């Protein structure tokens, strides 16, 4: 790959961000521990009643995963803004939206993918019926990138502010409620033996839309944040 081409820039950015996550791997594990702890605490709080746990299992896991992802969202562009890397990205001749898409992809790979991998364990903790597990995994696989993408736009809007954590949460939560309703709804439908494909297709449609539009929106918002 010739240095300086857009492909080389994306691969350099992916390599660098992966190396950075590896250097801060303690921080990267934080969302994972958070999600496991939340799911593990529910049976303690509500009692080990299998029927009730089965009923709330999918929703609980969904909420835990989405909240865990919110934890790491604020840091998505902050360090880059603080050390000037973001300026170098903007001044570079490559489309900013594409570079941001790479950063969002790394966020999903390093936060959501580990959460997806431990989801079967969380499902066991909550007595989720085995037939629902594939539906839960598919719903999470569609909803988590959606959160990474929507979250990135909100982070780009708020990153210029000094204390943006609270505002970010307020912005992101209403935007991901539909993903939660449809994702958890698909699991509940599967559990009740009802058709569950339609809500998953809706999630997929939103994901496709977000993959195209969110990086563009994030790039525009970041340029505003930099001024």
């Amino acid at each position, binding site marked *: 790959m010739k240095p300086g081409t857009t492909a080389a820039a994306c691969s350099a950015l992916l390599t660098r961000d992966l190396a950075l996550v590896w250097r801060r791997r303690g921080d990267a594990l934080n969302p994972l521990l958070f999600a496991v702890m939340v799911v593990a605490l529910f049976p303690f709080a509500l009692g080990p009643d299998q029927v009730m746990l089965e009923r709330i299992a999918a929703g609980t896991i969904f909420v835990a995963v989405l909240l865990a992802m919110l934890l790491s969202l604020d840091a998505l562009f902050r360090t880059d803004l603080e050390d*000037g890397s973001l*300026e170098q990205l903007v001044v570079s001749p490559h489309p900013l939206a594409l570079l941001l898409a790479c950063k969002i992809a790394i966020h999903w790979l390093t936060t959501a993918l580990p959460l997806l991998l431990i989801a079967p364990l969380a499902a066991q903790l909550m007595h989720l019926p085995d037939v629902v597990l594939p539906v839960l995994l598919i719903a999470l696989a569609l909803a988590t990138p959606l959160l990474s993408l929507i979250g990135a736009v909100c982070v780009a809007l708020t990153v210029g502010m000094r204390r943006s954590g609270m505002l970010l949460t307020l912005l992101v939560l209403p935007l991901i409620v539909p993903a939660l309703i449809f994702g958890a709804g698909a699991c509940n439908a599967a559990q009740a033996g009802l058709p569950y494909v339609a809500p998953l297709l809706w999630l997929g449609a939103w994901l496709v839309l977000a993959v195209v539009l969110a990086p563009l929106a994030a790039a525009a918002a970041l340029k505003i944040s930099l001024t």
Partner: protein
Amino acid sequence: MQPLSDEPTPLLEARGLTFARNDEAIFGPLDFALHAGEVVLIEGDNGSGKTSLLKVLSGLLEPTTGEVLLNGTPLTLARLSHQVSLLGHLLGLKLELSALQNLRFAVGLGGIRPGITPQLALASVGLEGYEDQPLRSMSAGQKKRVALARLLLLPAGLWLLDEPYANLDRGGIELVNRLLDHHARRGGAALITSHGAYAYTSGTPRRIPLRAAA
């Protein structure tokens, strides 16, 4: 200072450039041209808008009025070519990564000048043997030298340097001057900000005084 019509197209040209933040004028109007082989100092007190000017010239900020021409074509936020290297107050380096990792990333992003490698660039800024050291364990001056090595690597003809002498010892200041001379001799141009106590020693560079707009 007005360029004659038979002169070659300047690398960088500003026409009636002003910048205002929240309706408060920061600088301008400014008219100047920067030709290949020139090193120009922007002088002004703290708060006179030097950093804002460099940001406008590199496309990070939109000018309020006027325009910036790069090689005769208007600069737009959307599209920049490999023509400008910016060295700001924030160096844009990752403290967790080594000098070499930082430079390799810069090369991937911005391309590379023919005939140079990241190792060579580090050696020529006096950081031989520090290739694999994380930047976190380096001094402020050494980090600055890594950023200078990035300037050497990238193929940009125009350097926009914001206070390049800050944090550097005497050897470092000489190094910056040497790099600037070398860059000018091979047809590059550089715009340097300085708050008066400038350290550029070779020849008498052209100066652009910057005063806060009335």
